[in-house]
C-alpha cells in the first residue's frame, strides 16, 4: 500500500483530553506514520500506508465516531464505477440466460421440441442441466436473497422470482425423472420458461439501472462543480495536490480562469469571482483581502491566495449537495400509504398464489397439474412490488433535482408535495420584494443647484450619521468618487433630520417637518416630494443658508424581477399578500408597483407568525417568503416556508425551501415543479396499481372460464421486468419539465 494522507471527521470527542486518546488510537494502527487530531474542527489527519476503513474501525472500537472526509466528487466517481460494474454483471447474466433460452424458445415456436421418451429424454436432461446452470449463475442471487429474507421473516421481490422459477424447474425435473407422476397430457416441461424469465428480469434490472442513473443528473451536475485538485502553498512552494489532501487553514493559490477549490478567506491579492453557479448572481463579484470565497465558483481575472476555512464535506457546495441528496431520499405523505401496501405485498401475493393453486386443483379442467403449475407460477412472476415502491421516491428524486437546477433547495418530499397546494403566498417586503439595500434613487435640485453639488453637500453632512438612509447617501457619493467637505457642529434630531456647518454654510437635511421647524419655504418641492412618497421613495429636503436646495430621495429598490414573478403567481391562481413592518404609505406604494393583492403593514416582527396563522384560519394554504433569520417563526408557522438566501448561506435551515438565487421566481418555480412532480407520482402509482390489480387476476386465470385466456409465464416475466422500467422512464420525463415563465 502506498503512502497517503487521509482526513477523518471524528465524533464523540467531548473534551480536549479526547484528542490525545484518539491520536493514540490512530497511531496504534499498523502502518500509521503520523496522526494529528484537531479538536476544534473535530478532524484528524493521518499519514502512512493505511486504509481509511482500518482507521475508522479503530476509532470506532475506541468508543468514538469516525468517517472519511472525502470529496463528494471522488465518492460520486466510486459510486458510478460500482454501478457500472453491477450493470455489466447484470447484462452478462441476462446474456448467458438468453443464450440458453433463445434456441429453446425458437424450437418451441416451431414445434420442434422432442417428446419425453428415448432420445427425447436425453435432450431434456441436457436442457435441465443447462437451465440449472442459468438458475445458479444468472438467478442465484434471487434464491439466496429469498432464503435470507425468509429467515428474517421477510419476503421480497427475490422470493417471488425464486419461487416462480424454482417451482417451474423443480416440477419439470420431477416429470423428467418420473414422467408417470402425472397423466400424459400434463407432462409439460417449463425449463425454457424459467430460463427466459431469469433472462428478462436481469435485462430489465440492467435497463432500469441505466434509467435510474439519469434521475440523479441534477446532483451530478452539482458534484461536477467541484474541483479535483488544488494548488497549495507548502514550505514556500506551490504544488498541485488532490482536493482530498487540502488541509484546513492551508494557503491555496488561485490563478485567473481557475475554479476555487474549497471555501476560504482571501489573504493576498484581488480578483473578480463568478458565483453564478451557486448564487445565481450574474455579475462577477469583486473580492479582496478578508473577503470569503466559495469552493466551486470561478475566478475570473486576478490571482490570489486564500486560506482554506472549510474542506471536504464542510464546504458550502458539499452541504448544498448533501441537502439535495437528503431531500431526494425523503418521502411525502403520499408515499406512506403505498409503503404500507408494499410492506405486505409479497406475502399477500404468496397467499393469492396458494389460493390460485387450490382453485385450479379443485375446479380446473384436465390436465389439472399443468394448469395448476402454469397459473400459480404466473401469479408469482407477474406481481411486481418494485414498481409500486419505486413510484414515489423516483419522482421525488427527479423533482428535487429539477428544483435544484432552478436554484430552489427543497428540504424534503413533504415540502415538495405541499408547495403545489398553496393558495396564498405571503411576502416579506425588505429583502424579499425589494433588494434590502436602501439606495439613492432620485435627486431633484432647485434652481441654481445641480445633482452633483446637491449630493455632495447631502453626503458631507451625513458622513457623521449612522442612519441607514444616511449611509445610502454617503455610499452614492462615494460611488461617484466625490471628495466630501468638512463638517462642523453636526447635530441629529431623531425622526426629523440633521444640521451642521458645511464649508461655512448652514445646512439642514431632513423631512418636511424639519424644514417647517426652520421656516424653510419648499414651494414646488413639496408636491414633488409627495409624488416620490407615493412611489415608495423616502424624500429628504436639503436647505442651505435658509433656502431649499433640492430633494435627495432614498428607496429600497424593488428587485428587477419581483413584478414578473408575482404575475406568474397570479397566473396560477395564487393570492399574494405583503407583510411588513414598514409604514402603510411606503408599503402600499411598493405593493402597487409589483401588483400585490393585499398589504398588511406596520406589523412587528414578532406578530408576523400570528398574521400567517390568521390566514391559515381562513382555510388558506400559506407559503411564507422571508429571510431565514428575522422571519424564522413565520416561516415555521406557514405551510411552506421559503427562505430567501444568498446561496452560500445555507445556514437557513429552518425553512422548507431555500431560494438560493434570492428571486421570487423561485417560489413560482417551486410550485410548478411541485405540481409536476405530484402529477408524475400519481401517474406512476396509478400505473403500478393498475398493473398489479389487473395483472395478478389475469395471471391467476380469471379470464379463462369466459374467454379461455391464460397468461404465458414468459410474458408475465417480461411484463414484470418492464413495469419497473416504465416507472423510472416516466419519472425521467420530469427532467424535461420547464416551469412556465421560469428564468434559468
Amino acid at each position, binding site marked *: 500500500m502506498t503512502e497517503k494522507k487521509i482526513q477523518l471527521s471524528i*465524533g464523540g470527542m467531548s473534551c480536549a483530553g479526547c484528542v490525545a486518546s484518539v491520536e493514540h488510537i490512530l497511531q496504534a494502527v499498523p502502518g500509521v506514520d503520523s496522526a494529528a487530531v484537531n479538536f476544534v474542527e473535530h478532524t484528524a489527519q493521518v499519514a502512512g500506508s493505511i486504509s481509511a*476503513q482500518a482507521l*475508522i*474501525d479503530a476509532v*470506532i472500537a475506541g468508543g468514538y*465516531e*469516525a*468517517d472519511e472526509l472525502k470529496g463528494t466528487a471522488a*465518492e460520486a466517481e*466510486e*459510486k458510478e464505477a*460500482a*454501478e457500472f*460494474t*453491477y450493470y455489466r*454483471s447484470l447484462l452478462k447474466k441476462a446474456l448467458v440466460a438468453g443464450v440458453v433460452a433463445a434456441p429453446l424458445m425458437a424450437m418451441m415456436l416451431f414445434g420442434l421440441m422432442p417428446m419425453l421418451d428415448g432420445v427425447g429424454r436425453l435432450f431434456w436432461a441436457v436442457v435441465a442441466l443447462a437451465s440449472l446452470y442459468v438458475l445458479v449463475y444468472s438467478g442465484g*442471487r434471487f434464491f*439466496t*436473497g*429469498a432464503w*435470507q*429474507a*425468509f*429467515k*428474517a*421473516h*421477510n*419476503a*421480497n*421481490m*427475490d422470493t417471488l422470482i425464486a419461487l416462480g422459477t424454482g417451482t417451474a424447474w423443480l416440477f419439470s425435473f420431477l416429470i423428467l425423472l418420473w414422467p408417470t407422476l402425472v397423466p400424459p397430457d400434463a407432462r409439460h416441461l417449463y425449463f425454457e420458461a424459467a430460463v427466459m424469465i431469469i433472462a428478462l428480469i436481469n435485462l430489465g434490472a440492467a435497463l432500469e*439501472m441505466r434509467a*435510474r442513473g439519469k434521475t440523479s443528473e441534477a446532483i451530478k451536475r452539482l458534484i461536477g462543480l467541484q474541483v479535483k485538485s488544488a494548488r497549495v502553498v507548502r514550505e514556500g512552494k506551490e504544488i498541485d495536490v488532490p482536493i482530498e489532501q487540502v488541509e484546513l487553514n492551508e494557503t491555496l493559490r488561485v490563478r485567473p480562469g481557475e475554479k476555487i477549490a474549497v471555501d476560504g478567506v482571501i489573504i493576498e491579492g484581488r480578483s473578480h469571482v463568478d458565483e453564478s453557479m451557486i448564487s445565481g448572481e450574474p455579475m462577477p463579484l469583486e473580492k479582496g483581502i478578508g473577503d470569503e470565497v466559495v469552493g466551486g465558483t470561478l475566478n475570473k481575472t486576478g490571482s490570489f491566495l486564500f486560506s482554506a476555512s472549510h474542506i471536504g464535506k464542510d464546504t458550502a457546495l458539499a452541504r448544498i449537495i448533501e441537502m439535495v*441528496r*437528503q431531500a431526494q*431520499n*425523503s*418521502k411525502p405523505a403520499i408515499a*406512506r400509504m403505498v*409503503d404500507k401496501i*408494499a*410492506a*405486505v*405485498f409479497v*406475502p399477500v401475493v*404468496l*397467499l393469492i398464489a*396458494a*389460493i390460485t*393453486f*387450490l382453485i385450479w*386443483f*379443485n375446479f380446473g379442467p384436465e390436465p389439472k397439474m399443468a394448469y395448476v403449475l402454469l397459473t400459480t407460477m404466473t401469479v408469482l412472476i407477474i406481481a411486481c*412490488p*418494485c414498481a*409500486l*415502491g*419505486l413510484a414515489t*421516491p423516483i419522482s421525488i428524486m427527479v423533482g428535487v433535482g429539477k428544483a435544484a437546477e432552478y436554484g430552489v433547495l427543497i428540504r*424534503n418530499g413533504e415540502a415538495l408535495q405541499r408547495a403545489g397546494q398553496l393558495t396564498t403566498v405571503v411576502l416579506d417586503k425588505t429583502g424579499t420584494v425589494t433588494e434590502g439595500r436602501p439606495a439613492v434613487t432620485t435627486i431633484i435640485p432647485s434652481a441654481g443647484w445641480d445633482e452633483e453639488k446637491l449630493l455632495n453637500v447631502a453626503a458631507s453632512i451625513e458622513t457623521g450619521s449612522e442612519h441607514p438612509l444616511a449611509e445610502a447617501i454617503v455610499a452614492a457619493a462615494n460611488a461617484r468618487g466625490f471628495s466630501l467637505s468638512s463638517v462642523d457642529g453636526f447635530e441629529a434630531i431623531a425622526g426629523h433630520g440633521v444640521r451642521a456647518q458645511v464649508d461655512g454654510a448652514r445646512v439642514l437635511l431632513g423631512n418636511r417637518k424639519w424644514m417647517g421647524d426652520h421656516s424653510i419655504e419648499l414651494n414646488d418641492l413639496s408636491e414633488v416630494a409627495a409624488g416620490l412618497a407615493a412611489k415608495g421613495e423616502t424624500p429628504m429636503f436639503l436647505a442651505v443658508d435658509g433656502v431649499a436646495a433640492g430633494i435627495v430621495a432614498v428607496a429600497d429598490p424593488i428587485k428587477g424581477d419581483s413584478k414578473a414573478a408575482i404575475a406568474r403567481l397570479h397566473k396560477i391562481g395564487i393570492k399574494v399578500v405583503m407583510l411588513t413592518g414598514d409604514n402603510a404609505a411606503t408599503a402600499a406604494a411598493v405593493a402597487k408597483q409589483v401588483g400585490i393583492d393585499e398589504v398588511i403593514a406596520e406589523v412587528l416582527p414578532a406578530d408576523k407568525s400570528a398574521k400567517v396563522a390568521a390566514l391559515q384560519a381562513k382555510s388558506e394554504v400559506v407559503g411564507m417568503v422571508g429571510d431565514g433569520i428575522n422571519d424564522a417563526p413565520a416561516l415555521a408557522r406557514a405551510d411552506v416556508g421559503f427562505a430567501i438566501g444568498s446561496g452560500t448561506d445555507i445556514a437557513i435551515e429552518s425553512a422548507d425551501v431555500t431560494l438560493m438565487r434570492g428571486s421570487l421566481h423561485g417560489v413560482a418555480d417551486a410550485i410548478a415543479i411541485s405540481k409536476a412532480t405530484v402529477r408524475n407520482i400519481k401517474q406512476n402509482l396509478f400505473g403500478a396499481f393498475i398493473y398489479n390489480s389487473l395483472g395478478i387476476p389475469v395471471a391467476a386465470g380469471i379470464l379463462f372460464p369466459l374467454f379461455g385466456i391464460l397468461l404465458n409465464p414468459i410474458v408475465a416475466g417480461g411484463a414484470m421486468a418492464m413495469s419497473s422500467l416504465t416507472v423510472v422512464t416516466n419519472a425521467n420525463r420530469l427532467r424535461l419539465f420547464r416551469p412556465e415563465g421560469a428564468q434559468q
Partner: protein
Amino acid sequence: MIDVMVNLLALGLMGFIVWWFWLSRPHLKQASGSTVIEVIVENGIYTPAHIEVPQGVRVRLGFERRDPNPCAEKVLFDELGIALDLPLGEKTALVVGPLTPGEYRFSCQMQMYRGSLVVK
C-alpha cells in the same frame, strides 16, 4: 385421498405464510451492553434485521453494504426522518438517540429490505 392431502397441504401452507410473515416475531438482536451495532446489507436483507436497544442511550448503527443491487443503496428511518446513502463496500455509520421506547422501522426505498429498531 391424494386430493384431500393436497388441499390440506395448501391450506397448511397458507396458514404458515400468515403465521411466519405476520404473526411470529423474529428474534431480536440485543445490544448487550454495547450500543454499537453492525448491520450487514447483503442478499436482500439487513443482518440483523431486528435490533433491540435500551432506552435513553445513543446507538450507533454501522451499515456495511455488500449488496450491489441499487435497491440497497439507501436506508430510511421514516419515523426519525433519516435517509442514509450506503456506498457499496463501505461502512456507513448512523448515530441515533436517545430514543423513547417504541419500534422504529427502517427499510430501503421500496420496502423490500426491512428491519426494526426496538427501544425498550
